[in-house]
């Protein structure tokens, strides 16, 4: 074969190897597994249920997803820094109850009550963070204690009864969780402002984690806190700030939820912490710290909510939801661990 004749195919081969390489690289990203599963779930549910691919169903799905999702975003950064927060579900319930109690019992304006609730969330995050970093108590124990304290406070404050939330009209309500109808080929989609906030928070926190100096500190704090400290990284301060971010996002989500459903229930948010941590680890963030991905968390959030919504649509009893979630957590952890070992073996 002459040189001229062989040049053409070899160039083609080079291009195709490049494509294969790129695909291989994409497939070894931690986000690839959950993304594949998400796409698969969407396809399977669409095929199994006639009502699945409708605007009504997707409106439902997009209603609650951003609320849990916001908390998962904060949790992603916190877990990347090597800590986690079990008190988010309690903060979710308590912040709404606190805000509406101020409004209903003390006649405080909604805007001011919102700020007070956020301030209390900052304080809760600060206490969590200081106890973990200054007293060196594991975050599991600190935030477990805080879970009980905050939930107890919500119950005590309300004597266990939900707070009414429908009497007050304020523009802030619309800003936080107003809704609009978007016409689509599958019908009018009802979308809440909370989806916009979720996307905005995801973009900001994704940027912080990947591109900012703070993100480098977050990853170092979780990856090797001793090395980070030796380089002058303020590990304690970084972690405390992330406890605060997580608590604030949980409070924001709880207030959002209370306005949307027109009730602030002191029990709402119970066990959300577990679902949020599940979403985060399924996305590829490492529980032990050092490595986190906001894109993965967003995928994990949608994966769990799509499955929760889908299995009800296809007629699986809702009570079986946890079996699926547990199975997915175990499966994804096995996949992530397998891929990490493959990568290390390759290097």
């Amino acid at each position, binding site marked *: 074969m002459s040189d001229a004749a062989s040049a053409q195919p070899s160039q083609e081969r080079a291009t195709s190897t490049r494509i294969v390489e790129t695909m291989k690289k994409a497939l070894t990203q931690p986000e690839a597994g959950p993304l594949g599963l998400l796409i698969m779930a969407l396809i399977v549910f669409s095929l199994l249920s006639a009502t699945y691919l409708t605007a009504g169903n997707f409106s439902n799905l997009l209603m609650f997803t951003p609320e849990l999702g916001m908390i998962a975003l904060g949790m992603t950064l916190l877990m990347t820094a090597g800590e986690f927060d079990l008190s988010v579900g309690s903060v979710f319930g308590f912040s709404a109850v606190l805000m509406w109690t101020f409004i209903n019992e003390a006649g405080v304006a909604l805007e001011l009550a919102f700020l007070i609730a956020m301030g209390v969330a900052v304080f809760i995050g600060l206490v969590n963070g200081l106890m973990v970093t200054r007293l060196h108590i594991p975050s599991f124990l600190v935030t477990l204690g805080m879970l009980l304290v905050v939930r107890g406070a919500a119950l005590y404050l309300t004597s266990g009864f939900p707070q009414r939330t429908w009497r007050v009209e304020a523009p802030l309500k619309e800003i936080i969780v107003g809704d609009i109808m978007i016409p689509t080929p599958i019908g009018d989609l009802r979308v809440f402002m909370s989806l916009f906030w979720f996307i905005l928070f995801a973009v900001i926190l994704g940027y912080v984690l990947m591109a900012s100096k703070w993100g480098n500190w977050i990853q170092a704090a979780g990856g090797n806190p001793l090395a*980070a400290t*030796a380089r*002058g990284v303020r590990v304690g301060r970084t972690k405390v700030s992330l406890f605060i971010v997580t608590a604030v996002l949980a409070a924001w989500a709880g207030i959002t939820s209370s306005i949307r459903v027109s009730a602030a229930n002191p029990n709402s948010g119970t066990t959300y912490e577990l679902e949020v941590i599940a979403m985060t680890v399924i996305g590829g963030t490492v529980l032990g710290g050092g490595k986190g991905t906001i894109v993965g968390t967003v995928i994990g959030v949608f994966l769990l909510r799509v499955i929760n919504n889908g299995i009800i649509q296809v007629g699986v009893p809702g009570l079986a939801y946890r079996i699926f979630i547990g199975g997915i957590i175990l499966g994804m952890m096995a996949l992530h661990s397998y891929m990490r070992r493959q990568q290390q073996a390759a290097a």
Partner: protein
Amino acid sequence: MANELVRMDHVDKFYGRVQALNDVSVTINRNEIVGLLGDNGAGKSTLIKILSGVTPLTKGEIHFNGQRVDINDTNDAIELGIETIYQDSALVNQLSIARNMFLGREPLKGPKILNRMDTRFMNEVAQKLMGEVGITKNIPPNTPIVALSGGERQAVAIARAMYFDSELIILDEPTNNLGVAETQGVLRFVRNARDSGHSCIFIAHNIHHVFQVVNRIVVLRRGEVVADDIDPKVSTIEEVEQVITGDLEFIEGEMVASGANGETAPAG
């Protein structure tokens, strides 16, 4: 004394009632690699912990560049220009070479509020430094540390110290757990660091490695300096080993059998 970089003067260190260092005086000159030797518990670690700001001294003085200084924490040491490279190189495994090199001192670009790292600059510098330190293999600067060999990790740590113009680089067991070729690589990085104007304190259990690279050897025994001017070109490895164990004393440039003149206590 223009050539003097660091001088520790009559330094004592107590951990509770245990005396780890007893009246230690050591000087490190510019462009010099000093080997610090001693058995386990001789005080090597304590000495470098004091210099790198991990633990404060109990009594005594430290002079850096002719000025008396207080080193209270690791940031003080880094600001003075003292960089310590530990056995595990104190790197974050999950982060890339470039991100590790600039950890804690990330260059920013754009509006300050965005807090944005200048990733391109970091990658360019990291690439260049890896070449300078003597890594000829082409390793992309965005490679995570976990994918590097032990020698390459030491190279990253040494390159980092060179870039931030650390005047004194302390290497604590940098050749531990390394293969033969990797060890030679690390020793070459250390020589390159000295030749580009840095001073080094080199600690290694393997005396052969120390002999290959240092200009001068300091020996500690039970918290005291028993020799501070052994020339590796004049003395043999066996002699130095005996000074470490106390079978020989190094007095005024001469190796003397311990207890030969009736003394039982080691000379100070």
